């Protein structure tokens, strides 16, 4: 499981730029040109139908082009941050992608509506429905974060207990083995029946989905601690509680973070399912509701927001990991 996450994050991780300092930022000039061309297509070419926000979209493209042009000009005198320089190819690709999308939807109307939305239709959702979207994000986070923390906390404690204590292992290991692999969503019928409110039921489900990977990986992390580490501390007079807190737990932390990462992914899927089925708020509910009204633009907008939210949470987790595990050699950058 460790290796899996490793390769996944490595593939996602951006490669470091090797552009020489002070040289011309050719991709930057190209990106500025691409955004200017995209703006020209959006603004100069008449829409196939009545679309709102075409002008705003065009202005955004113009602004992007101007900002990139400015950055490319500045780069001749002062080197830009490597991260920005490295994103040059992406800036070009985004402009081309937006342009292509704009042409086949708004300009030529090639794709069936309302299933495929034009870029300005999605932009319109953000300008007109941002309050409801924003509230949905907050509702989702308000459900997700406490539930995730409960599941992660319990998973961590159970993992340490199983890894450390033979008695705990004897009783908890079989239960974990039998119930752990059951997808958390399989408990939905039971949960919405047993728990008094849909919120408490969802909290249970999200916590459960987080619990399993965190418990298993904490356990394997604790179990894998070299016995020499314990011997060293024991010869110096360490008591069992010290061995748990200061040897087993820190040594297991890299593995714990893999579990936290996997648990976060699992918690996202349960969150969305729970919001679509029972909870009357949040991004999952928003998408369900938008689809019910055939408001596909709203659905795509919510999907985009959800992608940003989940990615931001994963980034946050990796930041915390990098900070806590700075002692590790060659950690994967997210």
């Amino acid at each position, binding site marked *: 499981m460790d290796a899996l996450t490793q390769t996944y994050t490595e593939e996602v991780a951006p490669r470091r730029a090797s552009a020489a300092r002070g040289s011309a930022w050719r991709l930057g000039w190209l990106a500025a040109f691409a955004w200017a061309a995209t703006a020209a297509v959006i603004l100069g070419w008449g829409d196939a139908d009545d679309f709102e926000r075409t002008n705003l979209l065009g202005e955004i493209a113009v602004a992007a082009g101007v900002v990139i042009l400015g950055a490319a000009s500045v780069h001749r005198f002062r080197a830009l941050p490597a991260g920005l320089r490295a994103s040059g190819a992406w800036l070009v690709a985004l402009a081309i992608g937006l342009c292509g999308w704009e042409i086949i939807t708004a300009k030529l109307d090639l794709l069936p509506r309302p299933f495929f939305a034009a870029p300005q239709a999605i932009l319109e959702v953000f300008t007109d429905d941002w309050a409801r979207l924003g509230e949905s994000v907050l509702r989702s986070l308000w459900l997700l974060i406490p539930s995730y923390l409960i599941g992660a906390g319990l998973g961590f404690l159970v993992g340490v207990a199983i890894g450390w204590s033979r008695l705990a292992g004897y009783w908890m290991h079989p239960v974990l083995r039998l119930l752990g692999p059951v997808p958390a969503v399989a408990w939905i019928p039971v949960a919405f029946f047993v728990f008094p409110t849909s919120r408490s039921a969802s909290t249970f489900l999200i916590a459960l989905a987080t619990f399993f990977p965190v418990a298993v990986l904490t356990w394997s992390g604790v179990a894998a601690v070299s016995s020499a580490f314990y011997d060293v*501390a024991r010869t110096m007079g360490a008591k069992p509680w010290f061995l748990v807190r200061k040897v087993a737990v820190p*040594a297991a932390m890299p593995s714990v973070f893999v579990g936290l990462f996997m648990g976060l992914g699992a918690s996202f899927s349960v969150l969305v399912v729970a919001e679509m089925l029972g909870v009357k708020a949040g991004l999952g509910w928003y998408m369900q509701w938008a689809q019910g009204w055939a408001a596909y633009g709203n659905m795509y907008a919510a999907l985009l927001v959800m992608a940003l939210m989940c990615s931001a949470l994963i980034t946050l987790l990796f930041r915390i990991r990098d900070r806590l595990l700075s*002692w590790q050699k060659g950690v994967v950058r997210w």
Partner: protein
Amino acid sequence: MVALQAAVQAGLALDVANVSHSFSLAGQPLPVLEHINLRVGPGEFVALVGPSGCGKSSLLRLVAGLDQPTTGAVLADGQTITGPDPSRVLMFQDPTLYPWRTVRANAALGLEARGELRRYGHRVDEALQLVGLTAFAGAYPHQISGGMAQRASLARALVNDPGLLILDEPLGKLDSLTRLQMQSELLRIWRDRGFTALLVTHDVEEALLLAGRVIVFSERPARIRADLTVELPYPRHRDDPALTGLRREILALLGLES
């Protein structure tokens, strides 16, 4: 160099009394030590040499209190050893530093484990200075070389002000140059501090350069084949004819005629 200020206690007297020890391997008892009798006086430096896998390291684990002998007893200053104690510190072949702790925090491990960090915290920096690692106190183990890691491990042991330092091939994995350097530092610190030292090594020359006595073990199950006193003044030279003579004698005992 700096002497640790906390009372430089005299070394500990060690008594291995008729110890036999066996492991259980796939249900079968596997004897590793047979009727070992060994007395080590306070402040002595004793080296144990023997064929690989003969059970020397098992003896060290008994002395450290990490395992209990099947029969017989190991006594420290006349008291039977029943468990680990900070007065008897083990240094392993691998530095076994905690990778999540800086060099300083690793050296402070023993004090922290016993809740004495506040009282004796100054010993940490003194020990780091003694092994020449002051500049690397804030480094993490992966940032330092193998030799430095082994020095850090030595500092971590010395912080406990041990009466007995148990050395399980601590220099075995170092390159030959670092090894020579560490041998003389070990010697300097031992003479400075006056603890008792028990060293397991594969390197007969190392045993003769450092120890006052060399115990030669037989193949498993280990018995004591010879107990040789090395009456040469320090610092010793590897090409000293008396030393080369002893070396030849030990190698012959180990079945390696040269």
